[in-house]
């Protein structure tokens, strides 16, 4: 897993940036979605030794101050969960915006989006 996942992350980042650099609006949004997923997976793996460890649930027995055995670090999961929720909301907004854009501009070719550049 620890060699496979970094490769997957790299491919995800590369695909996301590649998609964002295409001229199509649809590919742009796919790229944005992938970029979010890539960083989520990165947090998960980067915290390896913290997040990917096999161990008991992160619960410390009553009266103790440290865990008796190795436990999985719950923080990366909490971060990813938050990021997924935020990413979901933002992506939903972006989809609605892109739909509106398609209706207003009439094409999904990003090169046609030049009205704001004409002085």
């Amino acid at each position, binding site marked *: 897993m620890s060699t496979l996942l970094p490769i997957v992350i790299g491919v995800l980042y590369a695909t996301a940036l590649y998609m964002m650099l295409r001229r199509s609006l649809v590919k742009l949004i796919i790229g944005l979605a992938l970029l979010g997923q890539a960083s989520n997976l990165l947090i998960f793996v980067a915290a390896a030794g913290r997040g990917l460890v096999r161990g008991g649930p992160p619960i410390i027995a009553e009266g103790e101050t440290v865990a008796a055995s190795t436990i999985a670090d719950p923080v990366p999961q909490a971060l990813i969960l938050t990021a997924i929720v935020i990413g979901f909301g*933002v992506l939903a907004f972006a989809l609605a915006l892109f739909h509106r*854009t398609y209706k207003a501009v009439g094409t999904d070719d990003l090169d046609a989006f030049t*009205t*704001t550049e004409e002085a």
Partner: protein
Amino acid sequence: MNLLLVLPIVIPLASAAVSMLVWRSRRTQRAIAVAASLGLLASAIVLLVSVRRVGMIVTEIGSWPAPFGIVLVADLLSALMILVSAIIVVATIIYSLTSIDARHERFGYYPLIMLLMMGVNGAFLTGDIFNLYVWFEVMLISSFVLMVLGAEREQIESGIKYVTLNLASSAFFLTGVGILYAVTGALNMADIARSLPNVTQPALVQAISVIFLVAFGIKAAVFPLFFWLPASYHTPPAAVSAIFAGLLTKVGVYALIRVFTLLFVQDPEFTHRLILVIAGLTMITGVLGAVAQNEFRRILSFHIISQIGYMIMGLGIFTRLALAASIFYVLHHIIVKANLFFVSGIVHRIRGTYDLKRLGGIQTLSPMLSLLFLVPAMSLAGVPPLSGFFAKLGLIRAGISAEEYLIVAAAVVTGFFTLFSMTKIWNEAFWKPAPEPRELPEWRGAARAMMVPVGALALLTILIGLGSGWLFSVSLEASDQILDQALYLRTVLP
């Protein structure tokens, strides 16, 4: 839990929530927005006074002890930023009362402004790096909606650019946070600052610092990451442009100052040198971009970029005086830049266009407005005795005493070009006879109401100029505080 630290976040949240309940009554929403912005201003003043009296204030949210829970930290820099953004939001709300049309108001314009302020204040106050990401997202999603509200074709097109680049920047930020957590095992900024010197891979820390530089650099619109800004800031209504121009990029600058004074200080020969180079290039490209423009708000947008260069110049020099000058610059700039956008909105209300070629003759129509344009415009260019002069003077003195002559030269040249641009707007929009003497109906009453916040901000610009000694000494205190890492660690992690 200290109420003072929570109020700048809770007041806008509560007012937005209550506004949602009275969705149909535009008048009630307006009243709530005015009351909330005044409340925000009051709480910001009290916060600044108490921070100056007792020093840094920390509160643990939900009483979870640091570094496990999220902390809110107000040092002098945060308190100053919160105060100046509260001033801008009061001005924006008052300006919006006459300038924003019913259609915008029906779609929740005022609650959106308040949610934006919640994000901005949260970003200024938080002491937790992941929480900073969350506040950035709160701020961004509100700004996305404000940017495209009204759904003109121009706005939607610019919205695509704005949304895409900001989302990409957020993804980079998140990536940086993930790797930072991997090497330090901490999210609390004080805790990260404590563990970073013990990290055995300096190259990795350097890489993380550059990821943060890129992420915040996009938000702050520095060279070469600024292209979304001049493509988008001139499309929404003037009130929205003004609050964006005043506050949003400055949150990026604040984040840069925070992480590059607290976290990434191990290798200033690399990081701060890089920031200094970027600062010079940002100033020059921004101001040269402005020279080529012929649209009122696009000129101002390019000037935001060149001014961002000044703000991070102080961070790049990285001495006590330079940081103080940067802080002074940010405070002065927020007020002046928002004010210039307000003026452009009034000109648009009179003539119905932002195109300089078609504008003209404003000085005969409204001498008062012309005067009110000159104050922030000359301040932006750095004419004494206005606030911008002292801001630039501080930076140039800091540059000379640090023997960074190249950046000083860039700053001086940029100042001249800024003066040129402001004179161009003055000549084209105000001084020359109007090529087409078109006036929109009933502008006098509206313009008079819109000039109230403009006049107040212009007065504030003059006052900052006159009281620059006092404000500069406060900025020096703030700079002492952010340079004293040990103090931050001691206060947050007792």
